[in-house]
């Protein structure tokens, strides 16, 4: 889960990473007051989770409180790349001599944290990695050892700094690692890390992505703040389903992430277009299946529902009962294709066929049927 910038800034503050003075506000009036208190020029920054807010008008430099008021008013309540702006940050504007880059990520290839440092920050790091890979230093950290001073020294010295900024950068590396570790981050990033004309450092932007599996450790982020979910996403989340919206018209419902993706892909390879990814997981009971089917029946874009179940722990009769229960509660013109295979397969097939639901045995033929009913791409 990505944190809002102001949440990340608060964490940085706690961990001794220098952040420009700021306030987070949710009205233009508050913005005015905050700008006044901070004094001088301020930056007004829309608090959204989508990338690229700067280019989308979500970051503005205000010369005075009046301007801060105006920009805050423009941003608050507006949408940036489809995401509603509920809060803005009013942040002291920093004079920047040079922009640096610093982050710590989990490198999946090696199963370890990696410190990334570059003397050229402020740009997209992926872009920099393509154009000037030699300008990015990558330091692998042994996860059971954690960050050590020698890592911090190497990272800091790559940033082309002189004292006292050099020493400060070392501290920032150590502190950023502490953030990374203590918050179970997938990513903790400072981009840009600003070098000011008086040779000090400021984290001008702050980005933290938490590991969803570790969220239970940080209840302060799980519920307190609204993160934009569609109705369908929110409903799926409640039931612990994995659900992702796609562009097509064929709804996909399976058990197991790999099988769900493969089903989605098969529909596509065979000429159709999947409307979603819905994985109900292993061992689902009838009531959960019913809810999952109902969700897809409600979804306006879904014209065909393709249910592909390979029963192992999941019992086919439970699945069949769930499907039937969902259909009984709704009148729908949507077409349903079911592929059932595995534990209690015969019983499941019987239940469905008694209720006039199409059942196929093989995945390919079922996918073909779904594509045929969906009318292709």
């Amino acid at each position, binding site marked *: 889960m990505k944190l809002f910038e102001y949440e990340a800034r608060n964490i940085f503050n706690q961990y001794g990473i220098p952040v420009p003075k700021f306030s987070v506000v949710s009205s233009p009036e508050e913005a005015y007051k905050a700008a006044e208190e901070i004094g001088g020029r301020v930056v007004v920054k829309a608090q959204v989770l989508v990338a690229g807010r700067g280019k989308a008008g979500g970051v503005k430099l205000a010369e005075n409180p009046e301007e801060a008021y105006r920009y805050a008013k423009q941003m608050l309540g507006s949408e940036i790349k489809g995401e509603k702006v509920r809060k803005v940050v009013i942040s002291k504007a920093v004079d920047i001599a040079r922009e640096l880059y610093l982050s710590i990520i989990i490198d999946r290839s090696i199963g370890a944290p990696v410190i990334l440092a570059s003397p050229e920050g402020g740009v997209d790091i992926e872009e920099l990695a393509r154009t000037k890979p030699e300008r990015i230093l990558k330091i692998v950290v042994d996860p*059971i050892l954690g960050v050590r001073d020698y890592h911090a020294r190497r990272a800091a010295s790559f940033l082309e700094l002189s004292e006292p900024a050099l020493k400060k950068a070392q501290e920032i590396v150590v502190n950023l690692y502490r953030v990374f570790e203590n918050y179970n981050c997938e990513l903790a990033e400072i981009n840009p890390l600003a070098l000011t004309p008086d040779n000090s450092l400021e984290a001008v932007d702050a980005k933290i992505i938490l590991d969803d599996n570790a969220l239970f450790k940080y209840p302060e982020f799980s519920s307190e703040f609204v993160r934009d979910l569609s109705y369908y996403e929110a409903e799926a989340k409640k039931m612990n389903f994995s659900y992702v919206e796609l562009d097509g018209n064929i709804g996909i419902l399976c058990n*197991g992430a*790999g099988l769900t993706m493969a089903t989605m892909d098969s529909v596509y390879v*065979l000429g159709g277009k999947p409307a979603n990814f819905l994985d109900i997981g292993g061992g689902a009971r009838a009531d959960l299946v019913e809810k999952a089917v109902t969700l897809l029946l409600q979804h306006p874009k879904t014209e065909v529902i393709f249910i592909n179940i390979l029963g192992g722990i999941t019992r086919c009769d439970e699945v069949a009962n769930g499907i039937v229960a969902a259909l009984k509660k709704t009148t729908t013109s949507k077409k349903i294709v079911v592929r059932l295979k595995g534990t209690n397969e015969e019983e499941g097939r019987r239940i469905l066929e008694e209720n006039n639901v199409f059942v196929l045995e093989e995945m390919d033929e079922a996918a073909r049927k779904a594509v045929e009913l969906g009318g292709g791409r």
Partner: protein
Amino acid sequence: MTVLVNSNTRVVVQGITGREGSFHTRAMLSYGTKILAGVTPGKGGSTVEGVPVYDSVIEAVRKHPELNTSIIFVPSRFASDAVYEAIDAGLDLVVVITEGIPVHETMKFVRYAKLNGVTIIGPNCPGVISPGESKVGIMPGHVFSRGRVGIVSRSGTLTYEIAYAMTKAGIGQSTSIGIGGDPVPGTSFIDALEMFREDDGTDAVVLIGEIGGDMEERAARYIVEQEYKKPVVAYIAGRTAPPGKRMGHAGAIISMGVGDAASKIKSLKEAGVEVAELPSQVAEILKKLLKK
């Protein structure tokens, strides 16, 4: 021969008294897996499906020195502790079924296990089966059949789908390894390819990948660099997955420009691996290859 598990595998089930643990203990026992002990702290002295339960792994190992493998069903918050306990008790193989372990914890125990010479399978995985010999996992045993093709996969049900098709086509498996759907697995594709290379009971390998990370690309590089002799057939799930979205598995996400299916398929093809378009084609390709 097989890899990782065989008829000499002696299993302790950690979290045996839980719903999942007891259910799969029964299923493994009925498959023929030799489960000598279970562990649930505070439940020592009881039995589950006739298997004696102990308070700690070290106690189980003292009572049953033949134990060499653990399978872990412990809930995610306690799973890391269970892994360390298994490593500390001197087991060789630890299969972590548990889903939802924070990746920071996984990184640590995976690294620690490696330093201690212990093999971890998973987490968030279906386990390992060597058909007819031993099943240390939660897969439906009947879709697998004894044979000479190794499977290594990041997914569960999709593997059963493909194994089932293979079995129907008369192509049995030496061992099927479910390395799990987490971003940092204890055993990688390369590790598994290496095991299968050394195994004289394996003639070919099926590699079932998915979006997220670059494990498939690295496997492709490994195949090229090592001039891998045994034929490899691959299937990659998630070609229609959008970037930035987690597709069910914690590890199945295209992020920061890395992890899409196209790149994986391209790399594998360039390494001479046949990549199936549909799961059902895996068995067909194998048939053709193994006839040669």
